[in-house]
């Protein structure tokens, strides 16, 4: 691997761990090849600003081309990326298609629901062997998306309110929830947690799964979640850990190699480690009682709960 031997490069290499540099460079080169291949295939005219950026990338690219075999792989990835992204635009990927591009979310769902069920039943002293243990509980699903979490919660007996900032998601969620009489009672609103606090709504349980890494100010978000929960209520948050393994799996593997998520869905810098999250929650007066790791086993294709929440593995 040929790191450009400029003074900037040397400073950078002292400040940041070398693995991170390599990873960043891989990302840039991949993106550069991507751009070049796209431009070549589409035959577009390059904008002047683009040309400047393009020449910077060309320098990186040139330095990497001297690496032997991996170049071919990157070219293949870039071309495959383009082909698949055009395929994505053609068939509108529907969030409720269990075999479609949202398949990992559907596979993940039963495991995280099992965790929610056991912790909420313990917290609210409900019978876990009952078919509808959440009868009488008001739950809000923050960032509900297409309603993949809200519908099972409603089937478990809860009165569910689903909120999302994107209007399209709310529309999809409403249409799908109408199909089953048990889920047609879900209330969907296109709003944010902060706006709900202004409306002075309160819920027994507030669930915000995979939301906090997309929010601009996590501590304000946690304060809104705390305001939405009644005293002695429950808040459930899940997010991706800021670890090397998470970078390799959630960003490189999920976005670039396997195309489970569109590129740019996650920013590694906005991930939170468990310690940081606990601190933020405590400042928002939420007492943290249980934590669990959530790992994917690629051999069986299933998610499982584990005790593995350390930030430094990789």
């Amino acid at each position, binding site marked *: 691997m040929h790191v450009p031997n400029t003074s900037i490069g040397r400073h950078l290499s002292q400040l940041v761990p070398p693995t991170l540099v390599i990873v960043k460079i891989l990302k840039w080169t991949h993106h550069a090849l991507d751009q070049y291949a796209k431009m070549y295939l589409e035959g577009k005219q390059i904008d002047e600003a683009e040309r400047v950026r393009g020449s910077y990338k060309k320098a990186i690219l040139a330095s990497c081309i001297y690496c032997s075999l991996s170049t071919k792989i990157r070219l293949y990835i870039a071309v495959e990326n383009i082909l698949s992204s055009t395929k994505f635009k053609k068939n509108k990927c529907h969030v409720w298609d*269990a075999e479609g591009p949202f398949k990992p979310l*559907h596979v993940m*769902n*039963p495991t995280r*629901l*099992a965790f929610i*069920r056991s912790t909420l039943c313990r917290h609210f002293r409900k019978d876990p*062997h*009952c*078919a*509808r243990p959440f009868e009488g509980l008001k739950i809000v699903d923050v960032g509900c998306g297409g309603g993949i979490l809200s*519908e*099972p*919660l*409603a*089937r*478990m007996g809860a009165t569910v309110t689903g909120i999302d900032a994107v209007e399209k998601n709310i529309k999809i969620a409403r249409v*799908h929830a*109408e*199909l*089953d*009489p048990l889920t*047609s009672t879900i209330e969907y609103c296109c709003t944010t947690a902060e706006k709900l606090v202004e409306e002075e709504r309160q819920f027994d349980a507030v669930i915000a799964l995979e939301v906090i890494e997309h929010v601009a100010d996590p501590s304000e978000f946690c304060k809104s979640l705390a305001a939405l929960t009644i005293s002695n209520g429950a808040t459930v948050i899940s997010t991706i850990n800021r670890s090397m393994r998470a970078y390799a799996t959630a960003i490189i593997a999920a976005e670039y190699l396997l195309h489970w998520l569109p590129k740019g869905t996650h920013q590694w810098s906005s991930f939170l480690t468990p310690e940081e999250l606990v601190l933020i929650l405590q400042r928002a007066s939420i007492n943290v009682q249980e934590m669990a790791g959530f790992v994917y086993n690629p051999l069986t294709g299933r998610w499982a709960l584990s005790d593995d929440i350390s930030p430094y593995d990789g």
Partner: protein
Amino acid sequence: MKRVITRKLFVNVYGLRVQKKTFCNDAAAKLSSSKSGQCSKEPEEKQGSTTDVHQYDVAIVGGGMVGMALACSLANSPLTKQLSVAIIDSNPALGSRDWIKKEEPPDARVSTVTPATISLFKDVGAWQYVQQHRHAYFDKMQVWDYTGLGYTRYNARDANKEVLGCVVENKVLHNSLLSCMEDTDFQKTIYPSRLTSMTLHSSSSSTRVDSTSGPEFSTRGSVAKLELSNGNSLYAKLVVGADGAKSRVRELAGFSTTGWSYSQNAVICTVEHMIENHCAWQRFLPAGPIALLPMGDRFSNIVWTMSPKDSSDFKSMNEDDFVKAVNHALDYGYGPHPQSSLLGTGDIFSWLRADVTLSANERFEVPPKVVKLVSERMVFPLSLRHANDYASKRVVLIGDAAHTVHPLAGQGVNLGFGDAYALSRVIAEGIAVGTDIGEVSLLKKFEAERKPANIMMMAVLDGFQKAYSVDFGPLNILRAAAFHGAQYFSPLKRSIISYASGDQRLPLFS
């Protein structure tokens, strides 16, 4: 050749025959012949039933033993007992609870339940009802063939068990499952008719308002609509096809099947002896095996597999001739008796290890003589059939609808019971996390659990059937060697007993 040799190693599984024709098929045939006189009543029924269309969580099409086992196990699990279930079967015995009289001669349709199935029945609380009626445990078994070159005796104590299985009449099993369900306050509705058509509504919703004062029908999004032969319709979130080998659900849902029919028919009947019989006997004849199973009270059940032409001859011949033919087939007919203990008494490895199987020392015995024919003779064609998929959106197959096997090892209905309990467990797990029970991903979990086990058993049974239907010198010697191997090599015998009892999932290496 290798395949033949590996099949030879499994040669002596149970020589138990099973007669597990579900109630559906026979009763449907009887009912259709009797319904012709009732045509005038049907239009009246139709008028009364189209106004209210009920929605159920689960619709079990086929109320035979396997369908009832599913309903019973749903009724007894805390997570699923609140589901509303519709059972669609035109058998009149489901509606009325006719008590089985003890003095009645045993019915010819019996099944052998393995210890694994017995424990499943005990879990749902249905076994206590079976024990109130005629049932026969047996702990010994003898298998040999017509060449007289070898035999195998199995004893339950070889594998540290009490029994090898229990022979129970089908109607007793069915009744006990019904009684067990009656005990709980499970919401089930029995529809005494047959399924005519089934449609799966697509995800586009539609609102219908009933113009008469009835309630407004909410959107019937993705549910299955079933139409019955008496004009009723109902909606269900999950349709379970438990309607036997000629499954209508399988046909309507478009599942493709693989299989072939064995050119054999099975003749079954009940016979009586002079003495009590506590052992199961199976002899492989050139045309197919004949099995004698103890039913208690000096009765036994005979299942004789033979070519279709012979089966019609045997069905129509008079009783005395039939009894003579049975005795001949079990005794000296077609070939000599095997010699006991070819290499002297005892396990040839007894000097190597301490654990000697009890049955390795047992001599060959001749089965008890049949004295009288007690029931009528019935003939059923035999085939192998396997549905390529067990589940699709909102539809799942269990029991004979999913897999039909040869009765030579008494495994058919036991596979069906295993399916029913596995499905009820998977449904309970789905409800625990709030899944829609008709979701394909949930049903595929059931399929992934049961399909490999079913396919393995079917392959083993089909292998036996093919191995025993050929009369070829070297093959006969191989079969004899396999008999001896199973008789004297205790680990093999133990693993055969465990596999056939349903305790282990793979025939070997488990």
